[in-house]
């Protein structure tokens, strides 16, 4: 085999095909056609498609590489502290991601998991997130613990009145100027607020025992 060029190449090709067929193709066969789950009780299906603005926000999230520090996958309650940290009551399942253009699963948790950030308690309002992204300071804290993203904001003069979404607190730091989220910042924030995998699918249920009877998830 090693001497005969033909067989050697066949071997190489087989190695490639086995790896390719063994993982990507098999997985594709198994979950490639996963459909939304229709809930009779609620007369709607899950997951819901994210609004267009959130889908565009995911592109901003991807191009800035937030995935370098944040995962979006909750592990099951008995595997790690994910639930205890309030990241989600159930483990994430493949169905959660079917409508995401580019799922940002991630493999580093330098910061918290964001899979359910939109429904986190207590919720930060859009102004609060904007402030946080601009300054890198978590509300209530003093030190900068987060990379700031000042380039997602416009620093511009106030003509007439300040823009409704201008960052509070920073408005009067320099007189007559205001810090206003750009279009990209707004989509990114909408995306973060849309992150919500709370709905309980049948396949996620076997992990967390659910007392409610069939069909009455919530």
């Amino acid at each position: 085999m090693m001497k005969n060029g033909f067989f050697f190449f066949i071997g190489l090709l087989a190695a490639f095909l086995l790896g390719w067929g063994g993982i990507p193709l098999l997985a594709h066969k198994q979950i490639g056609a996963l459909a939304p789950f229709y809930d009779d009780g609620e007369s709607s299906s899950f997951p819901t498609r994210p609004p267009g603005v959130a889908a565009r926000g995911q592109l901003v999230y991807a191009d800035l590489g937030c995935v370098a520090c944040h995962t979006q996958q909750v592990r099951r309650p008995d595997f790690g502290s994910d639930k205890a940290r309030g990241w989600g009551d159930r483990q994430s399942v493949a169905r959660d991601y079917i409508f995401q253009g580019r799922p940002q699963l991630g493999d580093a948790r330098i910061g918290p998991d964001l899979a359910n950030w939109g429904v986190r308690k207590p919720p930060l309002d859009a102004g609060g997130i904007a402030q946080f992204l601009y300054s890198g300071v978590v509300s209530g804290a003093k030190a900068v613990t987060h990379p700031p993203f000042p380039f997602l904001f416009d620093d511009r003069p106030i003509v007439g009145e300040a823009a409704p979404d201008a960052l509070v607190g920073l408005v009067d730091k320099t007189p007559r100027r205001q810090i206003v989220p750009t279009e990209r910042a707004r989509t990114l924030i909408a995306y973060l607020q849309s992150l919500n995998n709370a709905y309980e699918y049948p396949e996620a249920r076997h992990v967390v025992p659910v007392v409610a009877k069939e069909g009455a998830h919530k």
Partner: protein
Amino acid sequence: MSSTSTHAEVTAADTAGRWPVLLLLASGLGWLVISGIFALIASIQLHSPTFMSACEWFTHGRVGALAETSFVYGWAANAGLGIALWVLGRLGGATLRAQNWAMTGTLFWNLGITLGLGGIATGEATSFAFLELPRYVQPLLVVAYIAIGISGILAWSGRRTEGTYASHWYAVAALFLFPWLLIAAQTMLLWSPVRGVLQPIIDGWYVQSVFSLWLAPLALAGAYYVVPKITGQALPSYEFAPLAFWTLLFVGTMTGGRHLIGGPVPAWIPTLANAACWMVLFHFIVVALNLRGALTGGGTSLTFISFGLLAYFAGAVLDAVTSFRGVALVTQFTYFTTAQQQLALYGGISMLLLGSIYFAVPRLTGRPWNSGSFVRGHRVLAMVGIFLLVGSLAVAGWIQGTELSNAKTTFGEIAGRTRPWLLAVTVAQGFLLVGNILILVNFLRSVSDVWCAGAVSQVGAFRQPTTMEVHAS
């Protein structure tokens, strides 16, 4: 060092085929320095988040992608291809053919990387690990790679000897398999993307395949060639080498799912990865046995190769251990996985390649390395740097992992506790960067000597392997 290998020291094939190889090596070393700068910036941002944060091009996520991409596609690819072509040319016993193809391919490959890095910096990164380069440069990369590879494949098919040697297998496998891999990955992820979590599954497969089917084979092609050349001895346990080769190819790619433990993917993927991680150890054990002669030898090449060999082996063992759920519970999502990746890519692949480069360049130029003290400096900085880098990341990761599992610890506290180790990582990146600048400068000076001296060869004066290598101990 025996004199048996002396007669083959500088062959006509080296001199006549040197420019494509030197161009690849020069590009590789250039990218190594550039990726080191990006890695340094990224590491500073981990303890000082505001560092260069006002500049969108250098926001942490993008710098990280720039560092990774220039390391894999800039440094490791160019250097690995250079070594593979050189080894195949030498084993083929004739001057490298299709040299113009190789040179043109190299220029376009590096053009593609440069454009792609510009794309990443300006927000076109794909956000897929190891496949960050924007879609529009991907086809160019495939074509350029094939152009470079042709030269190597011709040297293999036109070889003057009947038999083949381990370096042949590894080099040809890497040349032949990577285009398939890249085409499959970019089709399924970038051109007509699959849905949902299939994307991270396929990306995980791709990342692992880049290592198992491409970078590791390139590095091993060089090591299998250089080690017996220097020790002058036949490789022990060589009869297992073919099986070890096929084990890496067939089983290696299945280990990628270990990063998805506990994730929203079919459970068989991480389970398969766990089994594969243990099976593939056979490959690593045989390679270690085959090349163990490197551990006893002195000299610069063998020092790098021994270090690389130990790191290559240790990396595989760590991968296997952390592929168990119980261990992954702590290490997953932490700096510990970064440590493992750096151990494999920097400690393993890069050190093996550097060892081969230290051996090859004097034979290509026909004269010793320009500066012996630069060689010694690089050697110390590289070894200390990698030790510090991997060690600090591992400790930081372990602290991070244990603190993460305690739901009461805040992220601010975790940052505080890992900070000293992250500072050490920055120091390590600094060492590595300086070391890499030393070898780049040394390389450019050595090559420019030849370039300017033109046809005048000093081959005769440097036939002793010891002088060729700059004996620096």
